[in-house]
C-alpha cells in the first residue's frame, strides 16, 4: 500500500543526486510520502532523520564507493536507536562483490543502474504491505 513515509538519503560526499531525485519523485508520484535528505549526510544524520520522521523505509543512494563503510554504520545506528524495523534499501554504483556483505549488514535490497523506478515501487509495496 502506498502512503507510507520514506526517507531518500545521500550519505557521504557524493554529489550525484540524479538517481536519488528521480526515485524520490517516482515514489511520490506512486503515492508515498517522500522526504529527501539533501546532500552530504553523515550516517548519524541519516539515522536521526529516519527516527525523527518516523519513516517505514530508508533508501540510500551512493555512487562514490564509500558504501561498505557508510551503509553498515547507518543500519547499526538505526538498531541502536531501536529502529531496526525500518526497511533499508540502497541504489547506485555498487560492485557485485559487495552486495552480499551489505545484505549481511542489514541492507534489504540493492538496486543497480538500469533499474526501473516501477520495480522499486513494487518492491516497497511488497515489503511494506
Amino acid at each position, binding site marked *: 500500500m502506498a502512503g507510507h513515509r520514506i526517507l531518500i538519503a545521500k550519505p*557521504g*560526499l557524493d554529489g*550525484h*543526486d540524479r538517481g536519488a531525485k528521480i526515485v524520490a519523485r*517516482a515514489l511520490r508520484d506512486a503515492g508515498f510520502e517522500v522526504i529527501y535528505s*539533501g546532500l552530504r549526510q553523515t550516517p548519524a544524520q541519516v539515522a536521526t532523520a529516519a527516527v525523527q520522521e518516523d519513516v517505514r523505509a530508508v533508501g540510500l543512494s551512493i555512487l562514490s564507493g564509500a558504501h561498505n563503510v557508510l551503509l553498515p554504520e547507518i543500519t547499526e545506528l538505526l538498531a541502536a536507536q531501536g529502529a531496526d524495523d525500518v526497511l533499508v534499501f540502497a541504489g547506485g554504483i555498487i*560492485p557485485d562483490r559487495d552486495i552480499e556483505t551489505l545484505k549481511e549488514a542489514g541492507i534489504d535490497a540493492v538496486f543497480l*543502474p*538500469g533499474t*526501473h523506478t516501477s520495480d522499486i515501487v513494487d518492491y516497497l509495496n511488497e515489503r511494506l504491505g
Partner: protein
Amino acid sequence: MTIKDPPTLTEDEKETGRRSFYNDESLVVLSAAREGWETATREAFDKRPPWKTDFTTVSSMEVPHLVTPEQVADIDPIADIGIPGEFPYTRGIHPSGYRGKSWTMRQFAGFGTAADTNERFKYLLSNGQTGLSVAFHLPTLYGYDSDHEMSKGEVGKCGVAIDTLADMEILFAGIPLGDVTTSMTINSTAPILLAMYLAVAEQQGVDIRRQVGGTLQNDILKEYIAQKEYIFPPRPSMRLVTDQFAFAAEHVPRWNTISISGYHIREAGSTALQELAFTLRDGIEYVQYGLDAGLDVDDFAPRLSFFFNSHNDFFEEIAKFRAARKIWATVMRERFGAKDPRSWMCRFHTQTAGCSLTAQQPYNNVVRTTVQALAAVLGGTQSLHTNALDETLALPTEENARIALRTQQILAHESGVINTVDPLGGSYLVEELTRRMVDGTFDYFRKIDDYGGMVEAIEAGYPQREIMDAAFQFQRAFERGVKKMVGVNDFVLEDELPMETLYISDDLAAEQVGFLNETRDKRDAGAVERTLDALKRGSAGDENTMPLIVDCVKAYCSVGEISDALRDVFGAYEEPAVF
C-alpha cells in the same frame, strides 16, 4: 585574415538582410520536388507505418525527416557559417583544423594514493597520451583532509587523495611539468590545487611564466547547478574565481583559469540544448564578474575554456559544438565588445557521456564511446577524454583505460576524419540543427537575463529545475520503452558474467592519514599559523587571495586547513533539498 568585401546583397536578400547560397530557380525546382517527396513518403507510410513512433533525439528534440535547400536558404554562408579560423568560428577556431595539430588525448585519471596515480599517469603517457588530467578524491574536492569525519569511506575512491603539497610532489614525480600540460578537475578548492601545482613546477626548476600550461575546471556555477561540489556560497566563490583570473593573467599566462563545464549539467540529465545554453550563460556570468572586478575583457577572456559532453545522438551533438563556437564569438564581440580574436574563440574539451554507458553488457560501451568521440571530433574539439567500458561500474582497469585511449588513436590515425576541416559544414541537416541550437540558446539567455543573471537564476533554482524535469522525462521515456538502451530495456542477456573491476581497498585510508600526520609533524608550525592567519585577514578584506594561498601551500598547510580558514570567513553553502 578576414573575409574581405563580402558581396553586396541582391534585392531579395535585402529583404532579410542575409545572403543565400542558392539561386531562386533552383529553389523553386527543389521546392516542387519536395512536395513530391512528401506525397510519396505519406503514401508509403499509409501502406506501412514507420517502424517506431519516436524519431526525436536523445534530448527529445524533434528533427526533420528531410532537409532541403529552401529550408536552409536563409542561413548566411558568410555571416553564419564562414571559414575555419575566422569569426564566428562556426567551422572551427583553427584555420588548419586537425592537420596542424591533432586534438589532445587527455584521459581523466586518479585513484588511491599519489603514488598509485603517478604510476597510472606514466602508463598513459608511455602509451601515447598527450596531456594529463587529474581526478581528485571527494575529500579534496570538498576541502576536507583524509582524516576528517566526512572523509570516512571516501579516501582514494573517486580520485587521488591529495592533502598537502607533499602528496602533489609524489603525484608529479618524474613528470616534467614544463613539457606536459595538465588539466585538473577541481572547483571549490581550485586555488589550493593550482598553488600546489605551481609549487611543484617551481621545485622542478620550470619557468612558470613561460613553460607551465594547463587548465583548472574552477567552474563553480555548474557546481550549484549540477555537480554539487560546492563549499562556500555563490558570491564569495565567484570572488575566488576572479582572484585566480587576475593572478594567472599576471603570473601564469599559459594557464586556462577556468573550464566552463556543460559536462556535469548533461550528466545530471539536461538536454543537449540546456547543456549548451546553461554553460555559455555561465561563461557570460564569469566574464561579467571579471569586468565588475575591474579586469579588462581581453586580459582574461582568451584564457577561458569550455568543457562539453558528447552523448549518443550524433548530429545533435555535432550541431551543439558548432553552435557553441558561433554563439560565444557573437556574445564576446557584441555583448562584451572584446577586440582580441582570442577572446572570441570557444576552445573546448570534450568527454564522452558517462551517463550513456550501461552496466549491462559493458563491452557495448566501447561502441557508444566511439560514436560519441567521433561526434566530438567532427564538432572540432580541442581535447578529448573517451570513457572506458567499465566506468559505469568502477574506475577503469589499466586494460580498459588503454582501450579507451586506443579508440581516440584509431579515430585520429585510421578513420580519415581528420583530413578535412569541419567535414559536415554545409550539410543541410547539420546547418539546420546548428541554427536551432543557436536560436534555442539565445532564448534561454533571455530567460536567465530576466532573473538578473545566472547567480540569481541559480539562487531561484531555475536551471536546477529545468535539468531535473528533463532527467525525469528521459527516465519515463526509458521506462515506457520509447527510448531504448540496448542491453538494458531491450536486447537483454539473462545470464551475464560479472566483470573484473578495479577495487580500491578501504585500508588505503589509514596509509594516507599516516602520511598526512607525518607531513604535519615535519612542517614548521609557526609558518602554518602565520600563513593561515594572513589568508583569513586577506579574504575578509579585498586582497587577492591567490598569493596568500600560495604561501599556505608552501608551508605545507593541508587542503582541509586552508578550506577551513576560508569557511571561517565566507561561510558554507547548503542547497534546499528539493526534488
